[in-house]
């Protein structure tokens, strides 16, 4: 049996189609990522699966239960972390955990023990009596995850769980997710951080309400075998961008960290031409190497491929 099954789900808000006939299935214990820009329909999909929104049409099952007709049973088996931090800031760490263990109906005899386990897992035992307001962002995220896990749900929905959290805290957070998956929990996570997508076992790339590609991260990257990527760092990045956008051997320019990623067909030939073009403008190149495609490169390539097919 699948942990999550989505079949032809559509969600319209008036004229706007937020989710446009998507279908996918998630295995038990899998970390399944929904990746895409803002407005792609990731959050709407998660909210439908959590029983917070009713789909306009189509069917979705979570742990074998229909999200519309069996919403209450579904809610007992899932944990949900919404995009915005949404615990109570004027309550202490402990009080928040207690609240959610009450709302999820954790049996009285298990409650104390579960609360302690959750605080331990989130590394917040020492801060249990602190007001949530006073916690740093990364800790709040761990607490939110803890609250979503207090009733030991087999399935977790995380909607951009690490937005606004510093890189080290993000790293720690993902370590926790990986451990949860290893312990057999299914995790459906949305993100727009491309580097996080690499933690997922499988990824669905979403764009304007549709799933445009679905595969393991490495397989998605391999599908771009016919192209190569160059990483460029130079003395004048903006000027380089302008020059390279007119350069015929470069298919696509994207900002990436302190430099730009260039998508090319023939890396050796392109390299020469780029060096010449930038040199002519008096720009010094500090780095120009062939690199493995980032998830962002993959994403852009897939979406552009989709657009070409539409035309």
């Amino acid at each position, binding site marked *: 049996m699948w942990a999550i099954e989505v079949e032809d789900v559509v969600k319209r808000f008036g004229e706007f189609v937020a989710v446009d006939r998507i279908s996918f299935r998630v295995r038990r214990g899998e970390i399944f990522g929904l990746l895409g820009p803002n407005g792609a329909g990731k959050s709407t999909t998660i909210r439908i699966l959590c029983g*917070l929104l009713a789909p306009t049409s189509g069917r979705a099952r979570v742990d074998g239960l229909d999200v519309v007709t069996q919403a209450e049973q579904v*809610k007992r088996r*899932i944990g949900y972390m919404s995009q915005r931090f*949404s*615990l109570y800031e*004027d*309550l202490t760490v402990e009080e928040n955990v207690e609240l959610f263990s*009450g*709302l999820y109906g954790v049996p009285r005899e298990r409650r104390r023990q579960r609360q302690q386990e959750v605080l331990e897992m989130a590394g917040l035992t020492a801060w249990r009596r602190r007001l949530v307001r006073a916690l740093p962002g990364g800790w709040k995220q761990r607490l939110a995850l803890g609250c979503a896990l207090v009733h030991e749900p087999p399935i977790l929905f995380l909607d951009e769980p690490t937005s606004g959290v510093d890189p080290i805290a993000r790293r720690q957070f993902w370590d926790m997710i990986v451990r949860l998956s290893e312990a057999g929990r299914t995790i459906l996570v949305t993100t727009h951080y491309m580097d996080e997508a690499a933690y997922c076992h499988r990824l669905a790339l979403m764009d304007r309400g549709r799933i445009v590609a679905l595969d393991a991260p490495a397989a998605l990257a391999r599908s771009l075998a016919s192209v190569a990527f160059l990483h460029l760092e130079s003395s004048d990045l903006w000027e380089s961008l302008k020059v390279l956008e007119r350069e015929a051997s470069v298919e696509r320019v994207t900002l990436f960290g302190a430099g730009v990623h260039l998508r090319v067909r023939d890396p050796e030939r392109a390299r020469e031409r780029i060096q010449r073009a930038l040199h002519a403008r008096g720009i010094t190149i500090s780095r120009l190497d062939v690199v493995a495609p980032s998830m962002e490169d993959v994403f852009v390539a897939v979406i552009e491929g989709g657009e070409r097919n539409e035309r």
Partner: protein
Amino acid sequence: MTWRRTWAMARKEFLHIRRDPRSLLLALAVPIVLLLLFGYALRLDVDRIPMLVFDADGSPQSRNLIARFAGSRFFDVVGMVEDPARIRREMDRQRCLLALVIPPDYSRRWLRGERASIQLILDGSDSNTASIALGYAEALLREHVGSWQMSVLRRATGVMVNPPVDVRVRVWYNSELRSRNYIVPGLIAIILMIIAALLASLTLAREWEMGTMEQLLSTPVRPSEIVLGKMLAFFAIGLLDMLIALLVGVVFFRVPLRGDPLLVLLMGGLFLFGALGWGVLISALVRSQVLAYQLGVLTSFLPAFLLSGFIFAIENMPPVVQAVTYLVPARYFIVILRGLFLKGVGVELLVGEVAFLIAYAAVVFGLATRCLQRRLA
């Protein structure tokens, strides 16, 4: 519905209130401030009306008339003027509300058996007080003339003549006609309504604004449990407020409580449940705290104040407004409160009012729950 989830919600609300001392202070200070304001400042009793006298006659007859006013507890003769123009000046300065003008021929006409006239001037800018003062003055003058007629009759016939009708007035339930006795019980309804408007109308709107509502709704907690849990917490505060109001009213203002105090609390609880339900209903309909608060004041506090018969008599309102007052729960609760406080009646005489409050609470709670449910889809 499970008690565990409802209690988890209620506990959380208690914690919110405890962590926000300002709102707790407000919830406890509001009844005390209102009681002091209304108990002391709002007095509808009119007595010691300041008056001026212009006596152009200066005769024993005119002095006799003036002495009548001076001897009454309703009037306070603050001065005699030589110049009638001063009356206007003094009235403009609000030094007097009433002026008595006795013309120069008053005693001459009186003694000749002709019709003597006097003039009363009233400051009508406060029409309510002016009409009450006029009533007192007319009664006083009627008595003055009547007793004179009796004495004339007695002198002429030589026999003791008694007035044909002897009116003996007994006022029941509020024998001193103290307005405080009828304002303070009504005030309990107003206080409970303010608490409901202040606290309950904000509660769900705050959850929507903070984004915490979505987290709540992702758990198995049901809308009815959310609504009930929140109401429980505010209910406790409301009951506390009611106890404060009862104590201050009975101990401090010496308002008689002739009925069963437990019955007062029970009825208060019933009213409070409906009032809180209304607050939560508004909160379920509106997602912004500012709007919810304004709607709360507009739809719960103002009608309770203006349309409940608390101060303004419902009988004097235009028929359309009177019809509206039937939908204001405070109207029924105030009848119950006055019945319990002043008359000491039992529930058996208040069945209609109690039935309305029960129906109101049930309908409003059901609507609040349903509205919260509808917001999800």
